[in-house]
């Protein structure tokens, strides 16, 4: 097949070069030059200025918290689902994927409606004579939005690896006298690491780079690094700075890729 394959792969190789490699190259070109076209590192080091560093730090913090919450919520859920009787599988999984098929913006919009001052939740609380909650336009609302939107991305890979663990291994461990806590830490957890890694990647990267959730649930009061980059392109029209900051963002993503490559040597990913 070898000689033929070379030709067969041509369309795809061409496509990747035009639409993946060259565009990335352009980001690097803009990020490493100034308005006159001269080489500069200024756009990269701009991340150190107070407002950018703050936005980046806040993004990391919020996405870290969201990822952690997603993990803590999803792991028990995935374990329960994986242990369920087989004939219920597809239906249960379906239920957890279904919200993902709703438009991402509509889902976030729903939370705006729920959380607003005179929103649904506060109306219910008023009716019950309970104190109102006021988290819209705060970082809490953004974390909530992230967890809500990205939770399925954590559940699915975890469920996939957990349901593949051979029950005989667990039984063997139990036969050999291991209690359930020990079995969990020595067998279940280590075997599910590929799922954990891809779950973390799939939650952390979109959370780190979002600008939609912070705009819709943060009342434009909270600036994440995604917002800064988006505004450099759509408002300040400083593409050089925007590209420079994108390069910084990519460094974080590359670190993430390396981490998942180390744990997931097959290169297949556990997300599907």
């Amino acid at each position, binding site marked *: 097949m070898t000689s033929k394959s070379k030709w*067969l792969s041509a369309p795809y190789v061409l496509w990747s070069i035009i639409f993946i490699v060259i565009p990335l190259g352009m980001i690097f070109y803009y990020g490493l030059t100034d308005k006159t076209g001269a080489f500069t590192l200024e756009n990269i080091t701009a991340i150190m200025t107070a407002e950018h560093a703050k936005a980046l730090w806040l993004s990391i913090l919020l996405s870290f918290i969201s990822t952690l919450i997603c993990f803590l919520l999803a792991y028990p*859920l995935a374990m329960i689902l994986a242990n369920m009787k087989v004939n219920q599988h*597809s239906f249960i999984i379906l239920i957890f994927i279904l919200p993902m098929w709703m*438009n991402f913006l509509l889902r976030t919009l729903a939370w705006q409606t729920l959380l607003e001052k005179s929103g649904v939740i506060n109306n219910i609380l008023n009716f019950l004579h309970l104190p109102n909650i006021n988290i819209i336009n705060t970082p809490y609302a953004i974390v909530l939005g992230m967890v809500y939107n990205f939770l399925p991305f954590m559940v699915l890979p975890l469920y996939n690896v957990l349901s593949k663990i051979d029950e005989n291994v667990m039984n063997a461990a139990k036969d050999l006298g291991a209690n359930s806590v020990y079995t969990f830490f020595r067998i279940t957890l280590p075997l599910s690491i590929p799922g954990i890694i891809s779950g973390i990647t799939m939650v952390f990267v979109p959370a780190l780079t979002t600008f939609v959730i912070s705009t819709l649930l943060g009342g434009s009061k909270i600036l994440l690094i995604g917002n800064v980059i988006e505004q450099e*392109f759509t408002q300040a029209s400083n593409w050089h700075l*925007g590209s420079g900051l994108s390069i910084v*963002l990519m460094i974080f993503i590359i670190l993430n890729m390396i981490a998942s490559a180390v744990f997931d040597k097959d290169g297949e990913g556990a997300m599907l």
Partner: protein
Amino acid sequence: MRNTARKIYIALIFIFLYAPIFTLMVLSFNASKTRAKWGGFTFKWYSALFQNRDIMEALVNTLLIAVISSLVATVIGTIACVSMSGMKRKTRSILLGITNIPMLNADIVTGISLMLLFISFGIRFGVGTILLSHITFNIPYVILSIMPRMKQLNPSTYEAALDLGASHTTAFFKVVFPDLLPGILSGFLMAFTMSLDDFIITHFTKGAGVDTLSTKIYTEVKKGIKPEMYALSTIIFVTVLLLLILVNMAPSGKNEKADK
């Protein structure tokens, strides 16, 4: 006892996931314009929605873009997978690495990089640019779902077919293709979903007056939420639910037959 705890836990997560959607559905029947009070039951937002030319146009755009981009991505992705199997390990992993970039990279960076590409090559923004972008980020999902099947493939069946006098094309479509089909289908579905749900990349690559549902909703939300939006989300949800139930029924029916 443990079972009850499990059920409660699942129920709680279930509420968390569905309460917002349920709220939107209820509000879509609320006659009063503000969500603060219930003004009676009405269908008027639904008729208003169908009379809204912009939203209907956006809906058509969204579906068209999703179908075409996922189809093209599936074709390109399938060919790429087949051709990659014959490559040297090193070349293949480099190519796979590049393939995965749009999937692992931040959407905002992918969107911006494509925007820069289109601008510097003077391509006019419109449906075409959205399509090209969607195909680009759809291909990795297709490849990712076909690759594992590719590895399970037994090369000797293909060679046997050749030995028996089949042409390469026939051998491919009669022997290899059926084995890949489930992977190709799930790749197509995955790509379709991703295309439907995308906002960020479309946001950066769309042209004048061309909107998909996502970008339409984004501008609507910024202008202030209209009840038509609640109606729209209800319709989308019900449609997706029905589709998924149908899709889910089909294979389970087959399994039952097989069991007999």
